[in-house]
């Protein structure tokens, strides 16, 4: 887990794996785009690290999405379910 102490009740979930997969991006490519090391993208995806606000904004800029579409306090439902069952997007 991230070495910084945080409240256990306040995790930050993200959709990085699915957003990367949609765009055919490797972790290395995303890492290059946001100027971090690829292991940090892996740590974000595994929930081992929570991003700073700066990094979160940089990631959102790469996907051209608002922060709430990429990061959430609640677990994300699968994107396909959200699009086809709930009439989203």
């Amino acid at each position, binding site marked *: 887990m991230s*070495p910084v102490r945080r409240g256990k009740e306040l995790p930050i979930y993200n959709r990085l794996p699915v957003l990367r*997969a949609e765009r055919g991006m*490797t972790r*290395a490519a995303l890492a290059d785009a946001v100027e971090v*090391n690829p292991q940090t993208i892996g740590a974000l995806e*595994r929930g*081992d690290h929570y991003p700073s606000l700066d990094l979160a904004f940089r990631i959102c800029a790469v996907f051209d999405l608002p922060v709430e579409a990429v990061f959430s306090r609640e677990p994300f439902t699968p994107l396909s379910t959200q699009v086809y069952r709930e009439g989203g997007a």
Partner: protein
Amino acid sequence: MTEQPGRLAAYWERQLDKMEEAEQKRARKLPGWRTRKHRRTLVVVLVLADLALVTGATRFETDPKWVFPAFWLSGLVVGGFAFITLRILTGRMSGSFSRLLDEREREWRHRVTYIGYQALSYLMLIAMFYGLFGAGTAGRGAMMLSALLVTGTTIPAIVLGWSLPDDDPEDFEEGMENA
């Protein structure tokens, strides 16, 4: 006068680029060893080597004369190997300038250097009390100080090596098909 800082800054940037390249190459070395199990094995070896240095320091200037050099030589050789290998396996967090680290790596760096600093402070206190009350000779006190100083400097690598998870091969994938 105005060009000098610019040249220095450009030189420094070039050096950082070279270091970054070297770090990227180092991140791919010893791929079979990039697991927590292997790192922890090296940590145990390094701790044993540190203990050999400390034990050797207590035998300085005592009979039989071969004991001190045997402990120190083996401690330095084995510990040196384990330390350098751990530096390679723990990546830029243990060796690079902060400028080359991202936010996650800086958090790790801050954590392990803080632990290392605290531990080194206690080890220096132990060395001081050993020198004052337990060493018997100034030479033995000095050797204990050296042994504990070396031990203290290895603690950040020990903490990192013990704590870091297995490397994920996906972190190093270059290409990806768009399915």
